[in-house]
């Protein structure tokens, strides 16, 4: 019975912890979105910087250079 009681309490705390984590994460991400993403976006718009190349144009081609041919192992340890 004691074991059941303790595991019930443990599960309760874990559930409570998850709820708190979700709430905290939500507000932190909201802050990041408004401050980080928002300010960057506004500055980009003021500076007329195009973050995604959306515009259609009249040039002959939309292909852009990629040149992905480096087989040096060091490049592939990186996640970027």
């Amino acid at each position: 019975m004691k074991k059941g009681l303790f595991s019930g309490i443990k599960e309760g705390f874990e559930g409570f912890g998850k709820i708190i984590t979700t709430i905290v994460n939500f507000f932190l991400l909201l802050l990041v979105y408004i401050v980080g993403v928002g300010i960057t976006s506004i500055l980009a718009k003021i500076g007329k910087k195009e973050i995604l190349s959306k515009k259609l144009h009249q040039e002959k081609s939309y292909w852009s250079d990629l040149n992905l041919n480096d087989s040096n192992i060091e490049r592939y340890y990186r996640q970027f």
Partner: protein
Amino acid sequence: MYILGISCFYHDSAVALLKDGKIIAAAEEERFTRKKHDKSFPINAVNYCLKSQGITIKDIAYIGFYEKPMLKFERIIAQHTAAFPFSIKTFLSAVPSWLNEKLMIPKVIRKKLNYKGDVLFIDHHLSHAASAFLVGPFNKAAILTVDGVGEWTTTAYGMGEGNKINLMKEVKFPHSLGLLYSALTAYLGFSVNNSEYKVMGLSPFGDMNKETNLYYPKVKKMIDVKDDGSYRMDLSYFLYHYKDKMPSKKMCDLLGGPISPRDCEMTQRHKDIAAALQLVFEEVMFKMLNHLYEVTKCENVVLAGGCALNSVGNGKILRNTPFKQIWIQPNATDGGTSIGAAAYVYHTILGNKRVTRMTNGFLGPQFSNEEIKYFLDKNNIIYNQFSDDKELVVKTAKLINDNNVVGWFQGRMEWGPRALGARSILANPCNSEAKELLNLKVKHREKFRPFAPVVCSDDALTYFDCDDPVPEPTDFMLMVYPVREKWRKIIPSVTHIDGSGRLQSIRREQNPQYYDLIKEFGKLSKVPILINTSFNIRGEPIVCTPYDAYKCMMGTGIDYLVIGNMLIKREDNPQDIWDSESLAKD
């Protein structure tokens, strides 16, 4: 040297294991978890790969991961920044999973697998390219990869020679031919990253004439295509770059109606939109391929990426471009990148010569007759045992010729989305009611969707207007060709409305038992062709284990199950274990 390739966390998680450059095992996680397109970390698929070779994670020299997570994260942040403040909802839903696991891949891999070796990150489209070139048949080939999106790239082309790949040019997000197809798939009421092939199957019911299809110019408005096949989307028609919905109100206005609800009745308008999309898709693909030929002057081409599963377009490539030979990765979507990442590590990064050539897709789990017998006996399942292979083939051919629907569970499970004769449902294509029967009693899928024929390679040109010689991707059900006029009425169940068939060709060396079965059926019916459809019901992954197969048979209208050297008759066993009709979903 063992190398593991892993793709996960987007859709179709999968694992491939290479031994000294040879692919020795590969499987998608969905087959084990029974969740279609499962994107979770493929722990079951890893365990299968290791167990199948009797090795442990300590034997793995490198793990190749199929993309560069930080580059992808950069793109996600960029698209949310560009759409501020309208992207708030997707930002809050997408970013936590990145912070929890997607940006910590080495940590996740180490924790889940207890792996202590090196993890190498191969660019997404490079993984696709490697999955098509490094395990394909050509020493030198032009390469085209087209999918929804990887990190930034959505389309790339280049050249492969020996063990080197050079991807020269790209089209970047938010412009994506794959996402155009997905957006219109969503508009027509189908699920994205799942049902694009249904739209392809729907298209022949629409008007395939560019001059008369009213929606063709409308779909063309959504994409600006240059003569060299490069393209950009008119993003005012789409929302996918910042919302969890793909078509915009402007697209709805252009196409004359709101987004169709799921499972709605397909009207002529839906069919014409599907046809217009397929026409535009093929037009862009052929332009890109013609440009690629101009650049590379190479007569071989290899394809990968989700768009390379468009078998209707694939069947027309050799007739619409100067390329003479083609090869396509059978698992061309993200699952296939696990093979690409592993092969790229072994051949290109470590500089080893190419040794492997993917000639079949039988890379998954298999079960011995003893294991199957143990399962059947343990569950009191009534069965008969064949005395030998010959009896198995002769009796099964007769059952199919008598218009029975037969579940066929033999050998190693297939790699990729198509059942190729290891986990298949087989039926008589000459039976005019077979299509209805399979659709209603077994597969529970949309009425418009055709079934695929399987034919021995040496007979393919007799019945189908294929390219000659029959291209290898046909072995993986990746090419649609016209059924020759005189056979269309004889094999109505596998002839689509436009007279085409998505055939699988099979060579004896790939699967002798399956080949012999088709030939034996041919002796009885005078037509050596079978209906081959995947062993599952709609919405369920293809069966993997004897349990999955038995469960599927008992819940559907499959009459017999040929499993290993045993034959199970549905009628002999207690039925209604589960109600497959209620479980069938998109």
